[in-house]
């Protein structure tokens, strides 16, 4: 997108961008704008009272939520630890299961094209389903509790993690692996000696990243009955106990921020 902003010499000076590009950009811009306006219209048309009403409503709501009722905070720690524990377990299991899946979906390791493609496609489909939808389905299958929540987190994070790590594997330097094969190493040895040292830092970093995602996801799993702090939040909301709900939200907020901060510091130190 570099351009020379030269002095116009005469009336025949060329325009900076070709005319065709200009119309193209204008058309795309108009299409986006139109779609946006339509989206806004559609999403607002069920709103009773319209936009202005909503604004004044906001003020009322702020009054409903504040001040938060700090007395519920002491009841929050149990479910909150459950939330974090769910994320820890799910991340660990996903990290272990990722290893074979990432190897199978890395083009430079899995030489069988059909195997590689089918694993890839499976992972791609898996990644399209949002975590909470998985949780709804698993709650339907396993009943209310932490188990369906953990399972949903595992499946969801597995999709992300396997993709990230298989991409890392595809980017490694294959030369040392050739050297190990030349000196008589078998497949497992070649992977452990040539591949593992090259991907380990990124692997750890991605696992921590997925842990952050899992923490954020597990906070809301309770809304569909899949365990953790969301369960309490859901209850308070059902009874319109807004000050209690606000207190819980604030606690969640600080815990999430703290965990993310620690995790991102560790990740910075790793890479």
């Amino acid at each position, binding site marked *: 997108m570099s351009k020379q902003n030269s002095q116009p010499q005469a009336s025949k000076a060329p325009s900076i961008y070709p005319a065709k590009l200009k119309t193209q950009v204008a058309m795309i811009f108009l299409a986006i704008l139109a779609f946006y306006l339509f989206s806004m219209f559609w999403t607002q048309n069920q709103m009773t009272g319209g936009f202005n009403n909503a604004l004044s409503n906001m003020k009322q709501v702020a009054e409903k939520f504040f001040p938060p009722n700090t007395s519920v905070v002491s009841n929050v720690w149990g479910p909150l630890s459950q939330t974090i524990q769910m994320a820890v377990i799910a991340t660990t299991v996903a990290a272990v299961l990722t290893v074979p899946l990432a190897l199978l979906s890395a083009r430079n390791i899995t030489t069988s094209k059909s195997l590689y493609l089918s694993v890839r496609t499976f992972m791609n489909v898996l990644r399209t389903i949002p975590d909470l939808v998985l949780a709804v389905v698993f709650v339907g299958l396993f009943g209310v509790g932490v188990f369906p929540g953990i399972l949903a987190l595992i499946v969801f994070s597995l999709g992300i993690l396997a993709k990230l790590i298989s991409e890392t594997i595809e980017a490694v330097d294959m*030369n040392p692996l050739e050297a190990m*094969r030349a*000196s*008589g190493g078998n497949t497992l*040895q070649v992977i452990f*000696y*040539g591949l593992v040292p090259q991907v380990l830092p990124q692997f750890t970093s991605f696992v921590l990243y997925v842990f952050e995602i899992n923490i954020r996801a597990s906070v809301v799993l309770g809304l569909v009955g899949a365990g953790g702090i969301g369960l309490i939040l859901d209850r308070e909301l059902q009874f319109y106990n807004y000050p209690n709900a606000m207190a819980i939200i604030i606690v969640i907020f600080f815990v999430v921020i703290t965990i993310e901060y620690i995790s991102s510091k560790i990740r910075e130190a790793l890479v």
Partner: protein
Amino acid sequence: MIEFKNISLVYPNGTEGLKNINVTIKDGEFVVIVGLSGAGKSTFIRSINRLVTPTSGELYVDGENILTYRKNDLRQLRTKIGMIFQNYNLVNRSNVLKNVLAGRLGHTNTLRSILNLYPKDDVALAYESLERVNIADKIYNRADELSGGQQQRVSIARALTQKPSYILADEPVASLDPPTSHQVMTYLRKINKEDRITTLVNLHFIDMAMEYADRIIGMRAGEIVFDGPVSEVSEKTFEEIYGRSIREDDLLEGADKS
């Protein structure tokens, strides 16, 4: 002893890598293979440890046709052939000792090697190999902290740690400057003489080939066009191998000057 009998290799895309090669390498020889890039030097060398597999003919190493080898036989074969690469092929993030110990992979069972539990003898052997190429003081440095010449010496140590009967070196000095190149070639030559390890080296610098080889094999377009002791080689021989007159950049010293 290595024996090529009517060896040909056609790559899946149709390129002919090797055309009907017949050659015998005797034990303890120091053979340099010369030729332009694309002449098939690399394919020739890599056939011996089956990093590439010839499509027809027979290839004997120590009297056995290695083209019939599968899995375990192949591993056995590779443990007795050390290989040195143009780009050193070390694991950058691992330390020197671990890189050298990788040479023992073929001799170590999988579980032990994964848990890093090498027999003491193997560690000692790795250390001795590093001493032989004068780089023992760097054992705990990461491989990417070393210079090119040092990395190539580590990769020689890795090959030595295999206790090989053969060493294959695929353009070992192509990424190095002249003084370091001579150093690396001197080590290869020394090891060849001291341990009587049969050594095959691909080179494209004529003067280097003349200085270190016992025997020179010239390749052009997948065929052997010259094979004889260094004493029989003249400038004319090289002109035949290269199919053109010799230029300055065919010489290491010449390449340095430019």
